[in-house]
């Protein structure tokens, strides 16, 4: 089970790498670098740490869970395929309105001068996350 979980995490990292490549191709190199370093790197490390803190389940438990899952959700792939075919039949034609071009400058200028409140929000969110983790693990330290 642990091996399968780690395989899932590696798959997620691969998706991140692929999305970073697409970001580079879509003229967004800074977001691509963030995606590559943070999502493919840091989040994979977080998941692998969480997996290493938990224990593997037995083969019997895994096969029971798998058979339950197959019984419950066997219809989902067919449903998704049916919806996809219906949408393909309808030939959805999305018309993109021509945007109003605004002078925006580069990302650095935009982040630090125009959307500087976003930076403040990010700092507050990071602090909230740090405090949340400290509170989550505080009782474990107290128990020891």
């Amino acid at each position, binding site marked *: 089970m642990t091996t399968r979980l780690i395989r899932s995490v590696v798959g997620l990292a691969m998706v991140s790498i692929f999305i970073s490549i*697409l970001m580079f191709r879509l003229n967004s190199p800074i977001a691509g670098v*963030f995606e590559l370093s943070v999502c493919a790197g840091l989040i994979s490390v977080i*998941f692998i740490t969480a997996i290493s803190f938990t224990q593997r389940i037995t083969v019997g438990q895994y096969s029971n869970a798998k058979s339950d*899952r197959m019984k419950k959700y066997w219809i989902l792939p067919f449903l998704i395929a049916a919806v996809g075919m219906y949408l393909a039949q309808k030939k959805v034609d999305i018309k993109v309105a021509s*945007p109003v071009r605004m002078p925006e400058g580069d990302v650095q200028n935009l982040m630090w001068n125009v959307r500087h409140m*976003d930076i403040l929000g990010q700092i507050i969110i990071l602090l909230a996350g740090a405090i*949340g983790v400290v509170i989550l693990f505080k009782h474990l330290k107290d128990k020891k």
Partner: protein
Amino acid sequence: MSETFLLYSIFSLLIFIIGLYYILVTGSLIRLLIGVEIMIKAATMFLIMSGFVTGSPSRAQAFVITLIVIEVVVMVVASGVVISFYRKSRSIKTSSINNLKG
């Protein structure tokens, strides 16, 4: 430009559906988080693509950087919750979270 928009929209939608399917099917809390992460990636891709199509990639990048920061914090806190839950109940199965029924 419209073809690019349609192509990347379909790609984002596909990733979103994969994440949704993963969340619906899985019974493990860590896999549930991975599903949420995949869905967030679809939203990220959609933002970048809309920035490219509308000709303002810098603005889209600013939003995406904020989104990535929020994503990391959410994942760290959620992983902490999963580990705490595991230490309390010795299980990471979603079916075993039924103690909050009031």
